[in-house]
């Protein structure tokens, strides 16, 4: 059994591209919890020993029970994540594999990211979808790398989930890849680009207006307009409003009106608000 566990650890730590050496399922979940903002009232960690005991039995029914309990615990049960990752890495039946992947997602511990990354290359698309979805919650370096790789997956759902996940993970270095994905009709990439782009990249996104569906591009531009000034300057936002205004379309007017409504509650500068107001007025008689 000891040899077997050594192998499991080896598998978890193999040097393939998408697995980083510092995330081999060994980090305590509490460490991950400590990273959370102090403002969030993090629930107290629970005792995961009974869960871990069940997971280590090797018995299918017991493992299933342990996984169910871990899922019910959610992030407070994050301390169980390394063990869940370990049993997943060791290999399970297909139903247990999916359950373990979902459990790791629910535990939201980056200790699960390395194991989940492995399963983004599973032959079963449902398994890959579950793994990518879980990675958007566990986060960590292996998650970003795996999600970037999944942008090239043969399955459209995997690609879309990966694109959304990269935005959620704030993986700024993935923006060039997200642009390629957007050009390949991975529409979810637009929102993530809007969440992550630098000034030039945001303008590049606005440049997609008229080339790819309006709703897709504005899904990303909406994100840009409401990002803090420290991340995206007013100059860029005004330029983007101008690009939409130049379209002179009814859908542009509708979008700008929607932004105008929400602008009041958001911390947009007066200059940006003015640009939006003027654009709404200018596009009032827009073409279809």
């Amino acid at each position, binding site marked *: *059994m000891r*040899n*077997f566990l*050594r*192998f*499991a650890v*080896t*598998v978890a730590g*193999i*040097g*393939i591209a998408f697995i980083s050496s510092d995330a081999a399922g060994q980090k305590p979940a509490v460490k991950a919890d400590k990273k959370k903002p102090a403002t969030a009232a993090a629930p107290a960690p629970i005792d995961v020993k009974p869960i871990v005991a069940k997971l280590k039995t*090797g018995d*299918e029914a017991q493992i299933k029970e342990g996984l169910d309990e871990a899922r019910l615990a959610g992030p407070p049960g994050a301390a169980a994540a390394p063990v869940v990752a370990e049993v997943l*890495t*060791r*290999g*399970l*039946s*297909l139903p*247990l*594999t999916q359950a373990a992947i979902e459990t790791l997602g629910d535990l939201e511990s980056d200790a699960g990211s390395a194991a989940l990354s*492995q*399963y983004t*290359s*599973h*032959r*079963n*698309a449902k*398994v*890959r979808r579950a793994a990518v979805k879980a990675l958007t919650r566990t986060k960590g370096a292996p998650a970003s790398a795996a999600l970037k790789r999944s*942008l*090239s*997956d*043969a399955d459209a759902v995997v*690609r879309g989930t990966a694109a959304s996940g990269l935005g959620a993970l704030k993986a700024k270095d993935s923006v060039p*890849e997200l642009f*390629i*994905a957007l050009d*390949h009709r991975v529409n979810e990439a637009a929102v993530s680009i809007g969440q992550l782009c630098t000034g030039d990249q945001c303008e590049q996104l606005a440049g997609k207006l008229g080339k790819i569906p309006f709703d897709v591009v504005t899904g990303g531009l909406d994100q840009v307009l409401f990002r803090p000034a420290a991340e995206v300057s007013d100059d860029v936002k005004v330029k983007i409003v101008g690009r939409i205004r130049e379209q002179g379309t009814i859908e542009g007017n509708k979008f700008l009106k929607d932004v105008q409504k929400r602008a009041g509650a958001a911390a947009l500068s007066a200059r940006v608000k003015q640009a939006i107001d003027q654009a709404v007025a200018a596009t009032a008689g827009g073409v279809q």
Partner: protein
Amino acid sequence: MKSSFVLLAASLGLAFTVAACAGGDSTRPRTFSTDWLDDQGKSIAAVQARLKGAPAGATADLVVAVAGEKNDKLIGAPLTGGAKWTFQHALDARPMIVGSVVIASGANEIFALDATTGKRLWARPTGGLALLGAGDDGTLTAVTLSRGTGSVILVIGRDGAVKREIETDKQLGDPAVIGGVILVPWANQYVSAIDALTGDELGRVTLRDKVTRADQIGGAVYFGEVAMVRFDEKISMASQGGASRVAIPARELPGTPRLFAPGTEKLPPVANARDRDRLFARPSAPTGPLGIDSGRFYASYFRLVYGFESSRGQLAWVHTHASDVIGADAVQGGVLLCDEEGKMVVLDARTGQVSYEASFGEPIKSCVAHADTYKALPPPGGGLSLAQQIAEAVSSREATLATGQRLLLRELGTLEDEVATKTLVDLASDPRTAPVLVTDARAALATRRNGTTFMLSALGKHYDFLRDVLASPPVGPIADALAAMKEPKGAPLLASHLLDPAITDDDVRRAAAALAILATKEELPMLLHFFAMYRGTAESDEIGLAVASAAEAILRLDPKEGRALVEHAAKDPTTVAIARPRLEALLAATAAATKPAEPKK
């Protein structure tokens, strides 16, 4: 007597012979009689002896095309350098080049043109009967026409006068004429020698092959359809199989090509599908041992033209033409092709290289060629290898060519040339390749034993949606080949594909099987990863078998710790059913070793 024949006879204004009623010398068969007993070649030997010194008649080296929007234009193009000519006339059958004349029919008449100038020599009404064949000895032209289930022979002089008309209820084929004697095949088995002026049957021979045609080629007459039997001093032994006979060897060919259209079949003026799928061969010489000219026979299949070695049928070359070949004929030293665009090309028999090109100057609908003395010039040299020619031929994505390309792929698989491997890899990797060709290419690739550079290069590619790589390489066949060649460089690449969900289950199985032979310690982590991920989640037998192959590699590379892993998996009920007994068998077959093993030699 059928009414159409009465009409014809009346329109011709002549006395005719009803063949079955023709009497005469009792040693000769009655014309087209079916109560004739095989005379062991006596009568035909006498005819052959009589005609031995007869003038062969004029020769022709000419290509005639049907053109025009209404298919009513004939274009003659001499192969020996004379000026092209044209002749306008409605057409209802493919023209024929016989001796120094071109015979054609249309608008209820048959007509003859001078082969050199295209000038009309004569025309005769047909009463609507279909033109089947024609022969000419420089003085007389014999024309066979179809009449219901029977036939009519018209013998016409250069002045256009009908010298004799012979009616029969038998189905006649395409005739030849020598020294005033008509040699006409009939009933698929006989060739009768008919005196052109009297209509008497001078002799007859029974052939062992189906015979519907008598053609004059390069100074001799040949009977046949599926083979060619020369009319020479051995013709008397034809019924015993002793005649001078040549046929092309049996082999796989694209489609169902035929060497000759049956002489009993009226060919339409416009080429049809059967004209795009043909065989061509030319007898070697009018005297001496009979063989196939230049040791080559040819097949056309739409845009593809194949040259085969004539003794065993091996593919010698393939030519990819720019457009469909709709007419062709074997010439001395090569094969002449006509295409839809109106181009004429002569290919060298030995290499398939173009040795002559010309044009009719406009698109054409069909073409016929006749070359008595024309000889293909040797090409300049430096042509493509057979593998390169096949690579070019199979690169076309036209669905109509798939059958012809499949044949080429099978040929390609037998060539030692590394270009063959590259072509197979490219075809099997290209998503635009027709599925049947992918299957063939993969099968051939698995048997290759060279071209590893191309195989390894292909394995370096993976499916990548964002980079528009939308097809995986043929991992399985390459794995088979690399394993058979014990190519260690293949191991890391195959291992990377083991974890690629874009390849097929079959490819995974074959990659894993190859890694059981080729993997080194470097690939061990990948194998462990694969083994763990799929031992409980394999959804197909192929992946289950791949798990077992991965276990085999793991046991070889790390006998001690690998054994613990495999033992656990073999006992674990979550391990898929197809893998467990195989894991147990592996464990039973391998003793726990302490030292890592080297890759199998």
